[in-house]
């Protein structure tokens, strides 16, 4: 039988970016890391000449997702800093590639994770870095509050 958690407050005190809501975040990031890298690997291995720009961007997106997943799961101060960079790059990437794919569809005969702002993935790629950065900001503040 499940019982209510003792308190909704920091009672179950999150001790890292991987705990609490971060558990969900890392799960979704891991999912995208896996699916983006598998997709990029298949695209590049089987039909690279068909849409080279799209496939290179797929591979880049995959690398960013892997980095974000690992650093969020590690959660040390250094990892948090790398995670902030990778989430920012991811947000910039989905906005840039999303715009590019709509403005110049000829370059994207085949979709990437970030095409159309992630429309092929329920726009999760657009929302994910925002939640990632919000979550990381909470940690940056907490760290600042405890040291300063």
């Amino acid at each position: 039988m499940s019982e209510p958690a003792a308190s909704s407050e920091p009672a179950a005190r999150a001790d890292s970016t991987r705990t609490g809501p971060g558990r969900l975040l890392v799960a979704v990031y891991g999912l995208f890391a896996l699916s983006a890298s598998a997709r990029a690997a298949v695209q590049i291995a089987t039909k690279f000449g068909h849409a080279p720009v799209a496939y290179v961007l797929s591979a880049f997106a995959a690398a960013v997702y892997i980095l974000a997943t690992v650093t969020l799961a590690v959660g040390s101060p250094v990892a948090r800093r790398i995670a902030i960079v990778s989430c920012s790059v991811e947000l910039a990437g989905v906005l840039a590639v999303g715009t590019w794919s709509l403005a110049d569809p000829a370059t994207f005969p085949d979709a990437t994770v970030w095409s159309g702002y992630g429309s092929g993935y329920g726009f999760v790629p657009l929302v994910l870095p925002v939640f990632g950065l919000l979550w990381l900001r909470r940690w940056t503040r907490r760290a600042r509050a405890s040291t300063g």
Partner: protein
Amino acid sequence: MSSVNGAVPTTIIVAGLALAGYALLMTALNRRMSVILLGALGVLEILLLVEVGIIVAKLAGGTHPASLPTLIGYLIAMPLVPVAAGFWGLLERTRWGPAVIAVAGLVAAVLMVRLHQIWPIIHV
């Protein structure tokens, strides 16, 4: 040989969405992981394994989709979803454990739709 097998993917979609709904309710109610959630996750795992078996049987029958590597990737990844979610969710002793299970349910449903796109003879 094909349309009979639409029942399993459809069941997986319904089961996945039901699991996701129940797990999200548990998150909203601030509950932790429960035996019920783990049991439901186990049922989802069995259904996914059955679907993998059905697809492997179709491949053994000699037909295959346009993108065989993609399908094989799905066959490998599908059964790992509930296992990974169960492992990761159990590490969490708060409401966010069930939230991880909800993701697994949604992913299972989405995977069935994608499978149909990869290989249309897999009916949903």
